[in-house]
């Protein structure tokens, strides 16, 4: 494993300038991912995890834009990179898998057409070679009878299969990094297990770094090496999966883990985090979690910084729980 991280995000800030005010969807996010590593980016709706993923690939549309920060990838800063160069990165060096595979797949084109197009956009190869790569990619993601399935349209596949095709397209140009945004949330448990199995295998074999964005802690537990927990646009805790899930330091992480039914005695009321996530429009200064935190104190009106805690862990809290 190389010493240099595959991706390094430094103090990323993506804001949306809406009529209701400035929505600071991503407000100072920093993390890094190494080759072959799986990073889980975890949080509930509105925490900014999806916008983070989109920001890395420069897919944020107006009224949103990246206002600050650096995204270091293969020697260049993706923030402010001209569109033509970004296009060379997207699909070839960094690929994305979305929650809805139909965001990747064109319903009116056959699968082989789309995959060949994806290959030839970034590689200087002939059509036959591209087709062979497509067939091999489908086989790698576990689609039986790949050669004949290539000639099908997306609607002829089931939901799980479609997601596999989307993953195959993401992998076909051997990218250094794949960003997966809730790819299994809409799938059944048994199909989800298959996709997770494939993802694990692919990363191990090809050394691709993977950022897995999800709200499901259980999925991240089984898949990821490291985890970053996001809340209100900031990372509140990060570290190795075992460390964070077994001994969370941030009260939000602790509350989130406690809400999971399997962590509670059967039939007893679930430990719940009171209230709801704050509106991101004109967020008041200070710790964003303080209105819901059982440990809040007057000092929390100041904004805590993400402080390293040793052994790769970091937490953004003045009063972290002790390991």
């Amino acid at each position, binding site marked *: 494993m190389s010493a240099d991280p595959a991706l390094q995000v430094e103090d990323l800030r993506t804001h949306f300038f809406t009529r209701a005010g400035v929505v600071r969807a991503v407000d100072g996010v920093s993390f890094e991912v190494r080759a072959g590593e799986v990073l889980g980016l975890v949080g*509930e*709706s509105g925490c900014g995890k999806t916008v983070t993923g989109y920001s890395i690939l420069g897919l944020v549309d107006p009224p949103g834009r990246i206002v600050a920060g650096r995204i270091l990838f293969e020697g260049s800063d993706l923030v402010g990179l001209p569109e033509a160069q970004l296009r060379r990165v997207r699909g070839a060096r960094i690929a994305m898998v979305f929650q809805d595979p139909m965001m990747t797949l064109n319903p009116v084109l056959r699968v082989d057409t789309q995959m060949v197009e994806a290959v030839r956009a970034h590689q200087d190869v002939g059509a036959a070679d591209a087709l062979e790569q497509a067939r091999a990619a489908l086989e790698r993601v576990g689609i039986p009878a790949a050669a004949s399935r290539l000639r099908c349209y997306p609607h002829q596949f*089931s*939901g*799980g*299969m479609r997601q596999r095709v989307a993953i195959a397209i993401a992998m076909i140009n051997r990218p250094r990094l794949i960003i997966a945004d809730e790819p299994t949330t809409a799938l*059944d*448990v*048994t*199909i*989800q*297990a*298959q996709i*997770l*199995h494939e993802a*694990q295998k692919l990363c191990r074999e090809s050394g691709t770094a993977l950022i897995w964005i999800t*709200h*499901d*802690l*259980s*999925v991240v*537990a*089984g*898949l990821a*090496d490291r985890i970053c927990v996001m809340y209100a646009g900031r990372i509140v805790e990060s570290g190795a*999966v*075992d460390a964070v*899930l077994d001994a969370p330091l941030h009260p939000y992480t602790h*509350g*989130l*883990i406690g*809400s*999971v*039914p*399997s*962590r*509670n005695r*059967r*039939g007893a*009321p*679930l*430990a*719940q*985090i*009171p209230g*709801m*996530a704050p509106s991101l429009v004109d967020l008041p200064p200070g710790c964003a979690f303080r209105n819901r935190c059982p440990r809040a104190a007057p000092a929390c009106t100041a904004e805590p910084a993400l402080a390293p805690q040793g052994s790769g862990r970091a937490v953004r809290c003045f009063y972290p729980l002790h390991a």
Partner: protein
Amino acid sequence: MNPPLIEVERLCKRFVKPLDLAARLARRLGADVSEEVVHAVDEVSLAVREGEVVGLVGESGCGKSTLGRMVAGILPPTSGVIRYRGRESAGLKVQMIFQDPFASLNPRMRVADIVGEAPLVHGIVRKEQLDGYVGELLARCGLDPSYQRRFPHQFSGGQRARIGIARALAVKPEFLVCDEAVAALDVSIQAQILNLFMELRRALGLTYLFISHDLGVVEHLSDRVVIMYLGRVVESADSERIFGAPNHPYTQALLRQVPRLETRKTAFQPIVGEIPSPLAPPAGCHFHPRCPQAMARCRSEPPRLREVAPGHLSACHLNDG
């Protein structure tokens, strides 16, 4: 032991796509053309006792939502009987809580009207008392009653889920069918809503049919669990038995594959194969193409639900002999 509140006997729901003129003509001329039939629910029988929470679990195409809608009275069954306290019709006593907090509320009605419409129309409450009644319901569901005059789009997902619950409670039901009621919610909000369900059960003596694909939630909430696969019940038992000693291979596989917070970096061992389309379910036991222990008999003969232990039913040929 309480008497059964809801009894479902050999319930079937078939969706038939009728043949168009050309196809009918072809059939008349001898072509082998038949209508497409989906057996969404295939001879399901179950009973829910008063005060119980029965969890109904399964994946896409298993028919749990269709079954739920039939029990709630929204969808008419193709055949079979549904009895409520021995009678044919339940009226307002059975209500449904829906999955999508956005789509289940009329966007053009104020919350006060959404919750207050039905009790007013059915004469449960008089017009003068309506405001107080609605306010009380909203408070019971954890919402500020002063928000009554607002519209659904001004609330968050969790709050809308609460409005949906208040709406169902407004007609004083005894039985709630919750169709993936917390699936669209964040984990922390989900915990709040599940706690609300448990609190309401205790306070109002409600009975639940809790439909979900989330085994963790079902395990926490339910007294009994029914597992469905492609329209049929494959296993049914008390919560402890299902999660502690599952009998049916499908249940065993399902439980093995559920991601859990405790399992770390272990290799996932999925079942091979896709979930078959309900349009063309495998003959015999529907699960046999994916079952690691399938026998020749499984390919031809559908297994019947048999009692393998007191209160524990399972439909698998492995249990015979």
